[in-house]
């Protein structure tokens, strides 16, 4: 048995895990931000549409959605499993991120909008310069939760055949008959990734915190 080589083999899937997360999270953030703005400021019809989107997307297990989106995406465009999986995870995450940002937008008091309008800002200007910067700060903590979930859920793309950490762990487990060791290695790598990410986001939260904010 060569534990060193197992670790090396499984760990070399980390690049995939990190890449999938680095595509899914920003994509989910971008879509989530737009969707949440439409939800909060878009008027009745858009609010309704976004509310349905959120309910449906959050009501189906990510793995099921991943397969549906994967076959939809790869059916229409010729994409690798890696890209199709990453984009699908980003779309799934957008529903959760939309709810996080929506909550943050709503927690900025209505007076801030009124004061911004009073100095002559347009509604769009007020949202951009006053509301979003404040909401963004409030969203960091709940967002770090979603970041952890996406990193862990990136393991789902193993079902599409992407050779990331979990996929490799399973191969090792099957070929060596040592599942415990293989999955422990995978677990430790995931834990370290999530731990470091949350630490970074905590640091960002502290750095951006508004001094003595009531």
């Amino acid at each position, binding site marked *: 048995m060569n534990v060193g080589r197992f670790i090396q083999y499984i760990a070399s899937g980390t690049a995939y895990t990190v890449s999938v997360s680095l595509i899914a999270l920003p994509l989910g953030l971008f879509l989530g931000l737009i969707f949440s703005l439409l939800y909060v400021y878009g008027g009745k019809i858009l609010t309704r549409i976004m509310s349905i989107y959120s309910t449906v997307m959050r009501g189906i297990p990510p793995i099921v959605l991943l397969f549906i989106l994967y076959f939809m995406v790869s059916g229409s465009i010729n994409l690798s499993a890696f890209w199709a999986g990453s984009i699908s995870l980003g779309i799934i995450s957008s529903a959760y991120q939309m709810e996080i940002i929506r909550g943050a937008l709503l927690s900025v008091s209505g007076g801030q909008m*009124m004061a*911004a309008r009073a*100095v002559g800002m347009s509604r769009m200007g007020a949202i951009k310069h006053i509301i979003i910067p404040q909401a963004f700060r409030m969203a960091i903590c709940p967002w770090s939760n979603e970041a952890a979930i996406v990193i862990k859920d990136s393991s789902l793309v193993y079902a599409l055949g992407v050779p990331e950490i979990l996929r490799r762990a399973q191969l090792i487990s099957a070929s060596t008959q040592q599942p415990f060791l293989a999955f422990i290695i995978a677990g430790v790598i995931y834990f370290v990734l999530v731990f470091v990410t949350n630490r970074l986001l905590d640091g960002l939260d502290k750095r951006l915190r508004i001094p*003595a*904010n009531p």
Partner: protein
Amino acid sequence: MPNPILVVKDLTKKYGDHIVFHDINMTINEGDTVVIIGPSGTGKSTLLRCINLLTKANSGQIWLDGEEITAPGHDEDEVRQHIGMVFQNFLLFNHLTALDNVKIGLSKVKKLKDDQAEAKAMQELERVGLADRAHHYPGQLSGGQQQRVAIARALAMDPRIMLFDEPTSALDPELIGEVLEVMGKLSKDGMTMLVVTHEMGFAREVSDRIIFLEKGSIVEDGPPEVLFYTPKFERTREFLWKITELYGKKESDS
């Protein structure tokens, strides 16, 4: 010849069947400080919000500097640049320092260059005596200081008129003086001001006119000496002296 800055004609605001105020007529001349008083719930704050178009009146017209701002298709955002507004609860932008609070309208709305906007913002902070607090966040300032920053923020836009919506009502008693002092100085410098307040000392000493609003309409409109001592309606005198007793002890002593 007095130059009318703000003219309000037959302004009416209602929510459903509830009439907040109706057929309000008033003219504010350049350089005048006019105080609006009246029992709570008579629509004083709503009136101010209707004047700077934050709330839409149901009917009536408003002219600013001879231009009808209630005319359909008028650019409301542009109008608000020329009307400064100070709120009861300050409403400073929480994520910005005092300096940036004053600066943001200059850079984002008036599109001034960064160094110009900064210099102008600093100048306005000096005007309210807070240059040394420029880099403090709202949460690090006292209520009185926050309100002075809010005044500077409104002044920075070089408004034609300043609206004050109970600017001292949310302040601890010992902080009221510094805000009234800034307002008094502004008035003396010739700023046109429309002030909703319960501070009778300020109304008597600083204002050119007092408007008594009750149950959604103007009861009386005249110089403070008249309203305090020889009003047309006994009700006006009663209200004024009652409020003076409740709020104005310190000022009336001086």
